[in-house]
């Protein structure tokens, strides 16, 4: 049930970003479903494969999509529990996204291109720097709640105290920035520029076409919906299914609009400033951790 909702959100998520961006720059903009139509068009198209590439290049988009889909399986939505839940499922979650990253780096190198290795190198580098932030944040949640799985952590985190709200807001901010690293958006990378030297994600998929490119776009949209679900889970208190459904959609929409705001009013960082930015995420996570330690007064 949850997974279907997340997939549906993912299908319109890029549309919301595009519409908000158009409105902010005074354009009429494409329809909400335009990115979805683009994906469907790609699914029907033929493909061109480079002669240099092998089987890895062909299966990577499939594996990437499967990684994000399975990562979404461990996420609850409010009081609706995750399909699969076990102690330490957040470790599985983040390492599955890591597998997706590993495969996309390898696939970029499979083309033997003079450009794609550049994106691959940056992806490996930024992923390495961002991962500690997520695990330290999970550590903070465990410290506060005493539970070890997404289901129980989120249920116990929403205890209604002011401090829990504080953690929720700080963590939502952290997850938001983390998702920008994972999905390669402004301010780390600008998906709209097609200048190869400044890109991370777009340069890695230069050679993908047709069905595979559609899968990659779908996986990227799903990543947004997955992180949006985590943010929403921080705030979905026990309430009726209808109310939590409305709030869930609302938070996802706010998330998409915030991404669009960033893209409209912020410039991309210089490439060599990105590591500093990503390291601030980890320090923010440590800050949350220390805050909880002091609050609990162990």
């Amino acid at each position: 049930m949850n997974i279907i909702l997340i997939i549906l959100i993912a299908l319109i998520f890029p549309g919301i970003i595009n519409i908000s961006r158009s409105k902010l720059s005074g354009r009429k903009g494409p329809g909400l479903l335009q990115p979805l139509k683009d994906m469907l068009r790609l699914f029907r198209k033929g493909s061109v494969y480079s002669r240099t590439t092998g089987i890895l290049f062909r299966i990577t988009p499939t594996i990437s999509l499967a990684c994000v889909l399975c990562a979404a399986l461990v996420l609850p939505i409010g009081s609706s529990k995750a399909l699969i839940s076990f102690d330490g499922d957040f470790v599985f979650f983040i390492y599955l996204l890591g597998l997706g990253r590993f495969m996309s780096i390898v696939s970029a190198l499979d083309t033997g291109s003079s450009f794609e290795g550049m994106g691959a190198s940056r992806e490996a580098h930024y992923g390495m720097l961002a991962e500690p932030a997520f695990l330290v944040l999970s550590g903070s949640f465990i410290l506060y709640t005493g539970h070890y799985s997404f289901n129980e952590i989120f249920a116990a985190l929403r205890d209604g105290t002011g401090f829990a709200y504080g953690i929720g807001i700080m963590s939502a901010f952290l997850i938001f920035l983390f998702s920008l690293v994972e999905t390669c958006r402004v301010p780390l990378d600008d998906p709209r520029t097609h200048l190869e030297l400044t890109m991370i994600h777009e340069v890695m998929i230069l050679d993908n076409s047709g069905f595979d490119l559609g899968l990659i776009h779908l996986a990227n949209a799903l990543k947004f919906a997955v992180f949006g679900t985590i943010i929403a889970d921080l705030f979905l208190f026990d309430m009726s299914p209808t109310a939590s459904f409305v709030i869930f959609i609302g938070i996802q929409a706010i998330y998409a609009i915030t991404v669009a705001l960033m893209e409209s009013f912020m410039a991309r960082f210089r490439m060599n400033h990105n590591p500093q930015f990503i390291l601030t995420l980890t320090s923010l996570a440590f800050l949350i951790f220390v805050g909880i330690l002091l609050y609990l007064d162990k």
Partner: protein
Amino acid sequence: MYQATGTVNIEQLGGLSKKIPYTTAFFIIGAIAICGLPPLNGFISEFIIFSGLFHAIQSLGISEAFSFVLIIAALALIGGLAILCFTKAFGIVFLGSARKPLPKEPVEAGAIKRIPMFILTALIVFIGLFPAQIISIMRAPLNSFVKGADTDAFVSSFSGTLISVSGISAIFAGAVIFILFIRWLVQRNVSIEASETWGCGYVAPNTRMQYSANSFARTFRKLFHPLVFVKKNKISIDDVFPQQSYSYKSHSSDRIEDRLISAPLGKLLQFIGRFRIFQNGNTQSYLMYAFLFIIIVLILGFFK
């Protein structure tokens, strides 16, 4: 690798996946496992370590909790580093196309050489998919190490978690197969073409223009600049049409290894080298050393 190609310099290799496909498959499965990624055995090990660390955060005091969270951050960083390292090694050596002519044409390992690699790979996959079975085998050795602790209760509670892990790994494998099946259904009816790698408009790329291992690690090297020393011979070419050929070389080395290990070790070897005159290969001299040794021992025994 060395037996197949005759070189261990990864900058000279490339495109081996087409020449030695079996070794390539074994290598990438090993690489994914060593990066600790699911659904292979490396992830199970990493998962067990993380479980322990997270439990420690929850159950111990303030200073322990803080040191354990530092360990968690370090372990996550190491995981990312492993991905950087092994995508580099695998990508440069096996993927793309050959960068330089090799000393000898690479040949696939024979059947007998492949068997051990196959057994190891099969174990990697098996442990990754069925960790609960392995952890119950580990129970007896665990008992002999941890005295007094209730390892049986721990193992049986933890294997429940591991069964969930193998369940979701199975779902993952199912999802991959399902999407591949749809991909096959859809792609049956559309045109699939083969072409050159997109060179962004440049039409005459050659294989030496591929991304190299050195450049792949560059962003990382810049970040850890104080620790990694890079030797470059910088040449500036001033004339528009250079008359002679130039060569460029760069080599990065680990400063900690250089200063703390190699340098003192070199000094020590130099000092010990002074005694090399005794080892002159002359049997008579060796007999004399033995004779002198016995006499010294006898004298010392006499004075005791």
